[in-house]
């Protein structure tokens, strides 16, 4: 550069951006949302820890509806197609989204999968996210609601430890309540209290996929949502 007057010296320039780093995902999610609205399909993003009972709740849902509701499902899985196979057996047209090393589904993955799944004729599209209490909460998929499965065996403090997930939940399904008689130390009130500290509109339903307890309330919740959504 010119040493006497500095001409040709690079100039420092600040560029203000103020944009979310998730904006690309959010755009794709908005696009998915339009697809769902166009077909009047209610999309439910089902999240929770690995093994919290997400697939089992969906199996129980299909069994309780016994063919009276039109369901479809996408299932995020790191490595296998097990969950989609289970759901298919339960009578829900399903497709697996293998994420490989990714810890969550994103809106583009869901959009791609929508081309290969018969979802347009259904009333409810369940999107079972990858078992993980952190990452899935960050990525909007275009869903109408977020539902989190939290098993009674996971520890009462999980909502406090994972506030990002529970803050986003519209409903928490407290799963595996059939195990409570074997778990005298588990305090349901403590779970409810933790939820009220992390969810602005704390809403939960205790359910068991084994006994079917609470599944009727869960179906009512979904039905109510569909009525609301159709308006």
């Amino acid at each position, binding site marked *: 550069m010119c040493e006497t007057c500095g001409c040709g010296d690079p100039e420092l320039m600040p560029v203000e951006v103020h944009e979310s780093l998730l904006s690309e995902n959010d755009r794709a999610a908005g696009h998915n949302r339009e697809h769902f609205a166009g077909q009047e399909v209610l999309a439910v993003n089902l999240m929770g820890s690995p093994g919290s009972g997400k697939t089992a709740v969906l199996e129980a849902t299909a069994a309780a509806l016994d063919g009276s509701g039109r369901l479809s499902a996408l299932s995020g899985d790191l490595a296998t197609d097990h969950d989609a196979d289970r759901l298919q057996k339960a009578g829900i047209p399903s497709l697996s989204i293998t994420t490989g090393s990714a810890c969550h589904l994103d809106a583009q993955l869901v959009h791609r999968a929508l081309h290969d799944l018969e979802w347009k004729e259904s009333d409810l599209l369940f999107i079972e996210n990858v078992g993980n209490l952190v990452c899935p909460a960050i990525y909007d998929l275009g869903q109408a609601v977020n539902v989190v499965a939290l098993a009674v065996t996971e520890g009462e403090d999980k909502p406090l430890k994972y506030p990002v997930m529970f803050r986003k939940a519209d409903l928490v399904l407290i799963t595996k309540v059939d195990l409570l008689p074997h778990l005298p130390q588990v305090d349901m009130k403590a779970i409810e209290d933790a939820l009220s500290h992390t969810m*602005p509109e704390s809403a939960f339903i205790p359910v068991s996929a084994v006994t079917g307890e609470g599944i009727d309330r869960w179906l009512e919740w979904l039905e109510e949502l569909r009525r609301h959504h159709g308006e």
Partner: protein
Amino acid sequence: MHEYSIVQALIDRVQKEADAHGAEAVNGIRVRIGELSGVEIDLLRSAYDLFSEKSVCEGAELEIVPVPARWTCRGCGAQIRAGEILCCSVCSQPASLAEGDEIILERIEMEVA
């Protein structure tokens, strides 16, 4: 480790701005990361150190501004402190998050000829 995908999005965005402004180098980047964004600042930094190498961001300093969660009442606007039930004790309205879930690229400092 979604921090990796977030850093990837960051680098892509910086590349776009650098191209648009004909930048010769990028000196610094500032992001705002909310306490309830789900992004771990330590992980974000190590992902950045790894991925910025040989990218437009190589050598650029990453400034991370942490944003604490701030809850307010939707009804009366009262502050709801951390650790409280997320519902206003005065008007029983649910709390809403005023701040603290952002993952935002705020500004880039670049060198132009």
